[in-house]
């Protein structure tokens, strides 16, 4: 699949079939995450793959932003240094977000729907997954075979968000 087709075709999927996702597919997604860029190649991300029904059920209950039960979750965590400064904190967010996008595009290519969620109770997810104190769940990616085919949401025009040479100086396509 062409990368640009994946970028434009991917949708946030919030309704899934009951079909489980195979180990091979999950590992492919983890590989996609592993090859994401990270600041200073620090690779401070950690990935907890959740497929067991009781664990999935528990996470969903503490995630108001997740509406239906997915076949799996990948909880993207940051293995944080103690007393990380704001620059480091920003890096954790950026690195985990880039890894999430790799996961979502790789999933789309093999027919798996995804949605990235931030509306979950971090304290609860940390407890459920038994995360060490320095490991923070940054993003939760839901995964499953799509049971919906949503229309693309509107996008701002390029000339509203992109500028040439200076902010405000119009980008002309």
């Amino acid at each position, binding site marked *: 699949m062409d990368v640009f087709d994946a970028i434009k075709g991917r949708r946030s999927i919030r309704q899934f079939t009951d079909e489980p996702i195979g180990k091979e597919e999950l590992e492919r997604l983890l590989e996609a995450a592993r090859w994401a860029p990270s600041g200073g190649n620090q690779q401070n991300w950690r990935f907890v793959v959740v497929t067991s029904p009781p664990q999935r059920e528990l996470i969903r*209950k503490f*995630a108001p932003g997740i509406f239906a039960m997915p076949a799996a979750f990948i909880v993207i965590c940051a293995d944080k240094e103690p007393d990380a400064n704001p620059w480091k904190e920003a890096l954790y967010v950026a690195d985990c977000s880039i890894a999430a996008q790799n996961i979502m595009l790789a999933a789309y290519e093999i027919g798996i729907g995804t949605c990235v969620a931030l*509306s*979950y109770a971090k304290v*609860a997810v940390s407890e459920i997954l038994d995360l060490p104190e320095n490991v923070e769940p940054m993003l939760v990616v839901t995964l499953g075979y799509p049971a919906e085919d949503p229309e693309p949401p509107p996008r701002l025009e390029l000339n509203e968000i992109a500028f040439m040479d200076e902010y405000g100086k119009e980008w002309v396509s």
Partner: protein
Amino acid sequence: MTERMVVSEEDLYEILAFLFSSAHLLVNEPHLYGTFRLIDAATRLIGCALEGGELEDDKFLRQLKEDVDSRKLLLMTDEETYFQLLEDATREMAKEMKTRAVANKSSS
């Protein structure tokens, strides 16, 4: 209308987890998410009541849940229609409760 309705222990814990998590998250989330969490909690509660409970045949609640569930995600793409949903759902609740109140009064 006056019987005491009880949700199952499992449903109660699920709704409590949802409500506590929502309250915690809403400290930092956009304020409109608060409206969403409330109607989402409402339809989850309706779902519990409809699933094998005494209210299984309640057509009004079933329809209301369907209406709200089908339009609630418009919060993300079409705020005006979403606001209309909040108004519609409230109006429908009021109409239904008024009808029930009148029926109760005339039967007593």
